[in-house]
């Protein structure tokens, strides 16, 4: 019936989760913009609502077009399954609330997106979930911050915007030694460049808005779980104790390896309501089909841009983990063998005002609070994405007032360096 062949990444990016439509034979999945789905009978409806049968009830919980995207990305990350959400922030929220509640604690690296810092440090703290941020985020330092009520460790594969590479293997070992799952935001790397689950991570998050979408069209998120973490060992009562919202089922008992994803979807997504629109899921399916070819081109251009800046007198502290000069090169070689992503950061010689003149002078690079678009984007983190962080938090995240973050796109690289050249000229001129 089904082939037992192990297919390659590019093949799976095109075909996983999106077989021909069973009804029409369409090779592209239809956009199933339907809120509800008819039940065959009262008996079937009861089985669905008690989680004993698989099927669609209501698009806030599951939808066929959303599921096509979920299966595709779960397959590419090597996970058991995925839950797609309205944004990357929502994916993070769903993942965390699936394993932690008021009175619990998390350990996070400080080298993470500013919006994640505020979600953890402000919104989740208000809900009673406390986070310790560990400068540098090394396995030993993260392990030292673990408390009896800690529920997970959180890092980014490539930190935003510091572009530091997490020691995923070491972190997974440290987390597991403490009985904790490792949550990895893999947005900057994508599963083409790094699959954290292969290095021991348990939960992978994406802002699918970025490279997975690839064209800057939709805001979306997704969480993937390996199915390999033992949720029934007592450390995570939300998964191992009877749930009052599903006839006292113990998720770890009734669903074994499917426990986390089942709870994330059936309880947390259901209650938070941050579901992904089928229309957006459809656009993501189109984007992911070409992930490998796009990432190869992003990586190629990013390396050339990093080398150009390193040789330029108007730029300093050029940071790209793929550079021979990078202190991250060993970690990059280990975890990002196909390339160190498409994000390059540097400091403009002349301080904050020179950095501001540089951005205002650019013609081709779009000044946008996004990354991972097919087009090249530029951002000044200190005044935008990380502007809610205080000086201490900025320093811990590796951000200076003269720092520029480039999201290197797919244009002709000569055109990109031409624009950077004239921008740096303007920065120096005043």
């Amino acid at each position, binding site marked *: 019936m089904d082939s037992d062949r192990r297919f390659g990444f590019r093949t799976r990016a095109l075909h*996983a989760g999106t077989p*021909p439509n*069973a009804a029409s034979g369409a090779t592209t999945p239809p956009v199933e913009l339907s809120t509800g789905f008819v039940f065959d009978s009262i008996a*079937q409806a009861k089985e669905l609502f008690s989680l004993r049968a*698989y099927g*669609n009830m209501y698009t806030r919980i599951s939808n066929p077009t959303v599921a096509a995207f979920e299966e595709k990305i779960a397959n590419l990350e090597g996970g058991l*399954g995925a839950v797609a959400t309205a944004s990357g922030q929502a994916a993070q929220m769903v993942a965390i609330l699936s394993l932690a509640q008021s009175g619990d604690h998390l350990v996070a690296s400080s080298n993470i997106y500013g919006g994640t810092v505020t979600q953890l440090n402000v919104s989740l703290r208000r809900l009673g979930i406390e986070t310790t941020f560990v400068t540098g985020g090394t396995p030993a330092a993260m392990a030292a911050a673990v408390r009896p009520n800690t529920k997970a460790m959180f890092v980014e594969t490539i930190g935003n915007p510091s572009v530091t590479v997490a020691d995923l293997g070491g972190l997974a070992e440290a987390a597991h030694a403490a009985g904790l799952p490792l949550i990895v935001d893999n947005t900057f790397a994508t599963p083409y460049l790094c699959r954290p689950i292969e290095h021991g991570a348990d939960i992978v998050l994406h802002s699918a808005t970025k490279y997975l979408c690839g064209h800057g069209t939709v805001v979306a998120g997704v969480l993937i779980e390996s199915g390999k973490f033992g949720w029934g060992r007592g450390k995570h009562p939300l998964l191992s104790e009877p749930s009052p919202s599903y006839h006292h089922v113990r998720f770890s008992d009734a669903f074994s390896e499917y426990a986390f*994803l089942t709870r994330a979807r059936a309880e947390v997504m259901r209650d938070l309501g941050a579901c992904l629109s089928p229309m957006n899921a459809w656009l993501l399916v189109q984007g992911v089909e070409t992930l490998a070819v796009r990432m190869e081109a992003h990586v190629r251009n990013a390396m050339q841009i990093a080398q150009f800046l390193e040789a330029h007198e108007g730029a300093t502290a050029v940071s790209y983990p793929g550079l021979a000069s990078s202190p991250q090169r060993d970690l990059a070689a280990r975890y990002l063998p196909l390339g160190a992503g498409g994000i390059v950061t540097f400091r403009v010689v002349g301080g904050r005002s020179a950095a501001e003149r540089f951005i205002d002078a650019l013609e081709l690079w779009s000044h946008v609070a996004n990354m991972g678009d097919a087009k090249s984007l530029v951002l000044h983190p200190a005044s935008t994405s990380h502007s809610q962080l205080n000086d201490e938090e900025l320093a811990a995240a590796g951000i200076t007032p003269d720092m520029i973050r480039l999201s290197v796109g797919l244009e002709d690289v000569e055109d990109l360096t031409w624009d950077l050249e004239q921008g740096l000229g303007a920065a120096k001129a005043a």
Partner: protein
Amino acid sequence: MIVETPSGRADILDKAKTVAVVGASDNPARASYFVLRYLKMHGYAVFAVNPNLERVDGQKSYPDLTALVKERGIPDVVDVFRRPEALPGLVEEAIACGVKTLWLQYGVVNAAAIQRADSAGLTVVADRCMKVEHARFGRALSSQGFDSGIISSRRRPVET
């Protein structure tokens, strides 16, 4: 034969009509109850085996495999929810009863017992869930964002 391929599991699920659930529970919160109900909903004739229960899901529960086979004949698949320590005894009973296929649920792993069943000519699936595998090949698993592992450009009907 120890079945380790997706096509091997799909074949077992396709051909089976009767399933004995050994270690069946009548507690709606238990995995064995979920699986028993699911298999019934999907057209299998399902028999419960549990010496501690009179009935499971409204049907007679048999005290052991031997009693079940005597009354209902040999089930196509014996689906096992038991502790790994109980497996050697169960395998001997299955061999004696003429059982052809043993399906061992998650965690029901005992290498010596699996080896013994294999040598005696039984077909064995280990550390897999019958409900999950049925849903994988029918694409119901995919409907909830789980990876079915299926890569194919051939049109197939969806079973829910």
